[in-house]
């Protein structure tokens, strides 16, 4: 029998579910200050996430997709990015955005239904939230192509879900990035669910990392609840990318601890037991145990952190609730770089109507 191709998919873990190291901690995670800083980001992200859910429940925010359980993936991946790299996300990467410098106010505005929230003051190169699943994977290829063409050592990082890995564009993007050896990291959060569709109905592939083989690029699985593993795997991929060695697909295995969005009720389609088991593996407690174990973190620091996170989130919330409403002109003013005259009449009409609305004459 002639074998013309042999492939292996590795899976990486450094911390077990109790937060004990199962193999030597890599260089990238040996600085305790860094680990503590990343831990702080994870806790802040979760605090913010819970606040967003609360705001939604009280009618102060639109539909929102919680990132509960994926903090290690977001923060681990963001931790290897440089300021001028470029992040492309779906709707569940609030934690990564936070780490990238997108402000809480901006995210609140966006999820509150105001486009101004995507005009990030920092993170100017990061793409806005992409709702149409997997379509942004192709954008990442284009962005990375531009970087490579200009000889930059930047990378594009494209995050998506297990559901996204079934879309044609996901595959076209991986394949294209492989052809041109582009500096892209495709990070798939396999949280086991795409709304109500379980992982096994998305694909007969036993891992999602093996989707890389179709594109002839490296693919690796990582424990997505293990910050150290995510960071290390992302770092290796980013270094390869910056060195001109092309793209990597990273499957980060985790679990969606929340409902799909605030419009969803996951208890309709999944077991309480499965959810309870998943909580045992969640990333924040795991890293906390590790930090406590190596004695770079204490219960009192934990308490102070929680309080400061709550304060910070509350300040952003107050700013959000006090933020002036968007004006109807906003619909028109950035549609084109310079608005065509054909639109001027419609703009006038909308503005006049807005004034009527404001004066309370119409619904």
């Amino acid at each position, binding site marked *: 029998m002639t074998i013309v191709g042999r492939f292996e998919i590795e899976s990486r873990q450094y911390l077990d579910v109790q937060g004990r190291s199962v193999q030597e901690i890599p260089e990238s995670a040996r600085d305790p200050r860094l680990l503590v800083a990343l831990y702080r980001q994870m806790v802040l992200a979760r605090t913010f996430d819970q606040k967003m859910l609360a705001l939604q429940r009280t009618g102060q925010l*639109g*539909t929102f997709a919680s990132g509960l359980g994926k903090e290690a993936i977001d923060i681990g991946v963001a931790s290897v990015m440089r300021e001028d790299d470029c992040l492309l996300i779906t*709707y569940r990467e609030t934690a990564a955005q936070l780490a990238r410098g997108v402000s809480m106010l901006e995210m609140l505005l*966006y999820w*509150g*239904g*105001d*486009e101004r929230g995507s005009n990030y003051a920092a993170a100017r190169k990061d793409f806005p*939230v992409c*709702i*149409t*699943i*997997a379509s942004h994977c192709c954008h990442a290829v284009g962005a990375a192509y531009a970087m490579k063409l200009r000889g930059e050592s930047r990378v594009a990082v494209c995050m998506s879900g297990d*559901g*996204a890995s*079934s*879309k*044609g564009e996901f595959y076209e993007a991986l394949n294209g990035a492989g052809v041109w050896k582009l500096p892209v990291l495709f990070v798939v959060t396999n949280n086991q669910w*795409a*709304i*109500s*569709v379980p992982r096994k*109905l*998305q*694909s007969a592939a036993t891992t999602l990392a093996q989707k890389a083989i179709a594109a002839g690029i490296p693919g690796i699985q990582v424990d997505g609840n293990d910050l150290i593993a995510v960071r290390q795997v992302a770092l290796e991929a980013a270094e390869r990318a910056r060195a001109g060695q092309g793209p990597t697909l990273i499957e980060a295995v985790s679990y969606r601890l929340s409902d799909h969005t605030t*419009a*969803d009720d996951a208890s*309709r*389609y999944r077991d309480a037991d499965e959810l309870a088991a998943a909580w045992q593996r969640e990333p924040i407690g795991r890293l906390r145990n590790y930090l406590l174990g190596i004695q770079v973190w204490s219960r009192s620091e934990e308490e102070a952190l929680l309080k400061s996170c709550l304060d910070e989130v509350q300040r952003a919330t107050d700013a959000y609730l006090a933020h002036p*409403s*968007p004006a*109807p002109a*906003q*619909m*028109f003013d950035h*549609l084109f770089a310079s608005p065509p005259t*054909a*639109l001027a009449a*419609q*703009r006038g*009409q*909308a503005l006049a*109507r*807005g004034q*009527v*609305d404001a004066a309370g*004459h*119409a*619904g």
Partner: protein
Amino acid sequence: MPQVTLVEAVNLALARAMADDGTVVVLGEDVGTDGGVFRATLGLRERFGPERVIDTPLAEQLITGMAIGMAVEGLRPVAEIQFSGFAYICIDQILNHAARMRHRTQGRMGCSMVLRTPCGAGIHPPEHHSESPEAMFAHIPGIRVVYPSSPRRAYGLLLASIQDPDPVVFLEPTRLYRLFKEDLADDGKPFALDTCFTLREGADITLVSWGAMVHETLQAASRLEQQGVFAEVIDVATLRPLDMDTILASVAKTGRCVVVTEAPRSGSFASEIAANLAEHGLLTLFAPVSRVTSYDVVVPLSRLENAYMPDTERILTAVRKCLAFA
């Protein structure tokens, strides 16, 4: 007779069609265990089994293309695209294949399938969930485009669409899914797929609309009646093939017409109706046909949704202008 919402009527029609015809299958994202994100397919999986109520991978081209393959092989698939913003990717398969299979094979192969998708703005959702793509679909030769605006019409038109031997794009007004209820007999009776519905008779002006905007259009007609103006209200409902006869006959009577749609103005289906009126009804028109539409901009996020969409007030303004024209 039970009172049902529009989305319940869709559900009843699906259940009825599946019970009556073993070749009907339902497929899409989350249509199975979850019963659809809007619950349009609720209970179908329990009743008809996972083989006929198919949770698909997240892949709209697969969903549409599979439905075509199924239809050619003799099933009657009803595919759901979860939100209208994800239906644009299906245009390719619908236009290049579903719409052409019968002509391409000179009748050897048909493509009896329905592509359902919730459409329209006004429910304050995230981006891409508020689209009005009907004009694009209505430009495609070889398909039918249906867009009901009440529970009863949703039921009768969906049954007819599933039974139809040719492909149907079936648009559902998300905003009306649970807005009101109607008596529904669940009698399995399909409606004709080529006839407009005259919802209200009147001799002063014709108001033409479809989808969720029919709601505001009817409200405008009520307001007008209080002012002594009697508007005829037509729900186009089957955009393709378009029943211009009913619209032309009404305008021949009223001499005035306002067409209301939630889609952005340029190239909207309101333009098609206005062009036909201008071509075939010019001599009967006392005033230009007015189009009340959304602006030619991107559907904004929720905070500006209301400023974007037409409302009763804008319809009334257009009507007043039309009536004042001499």
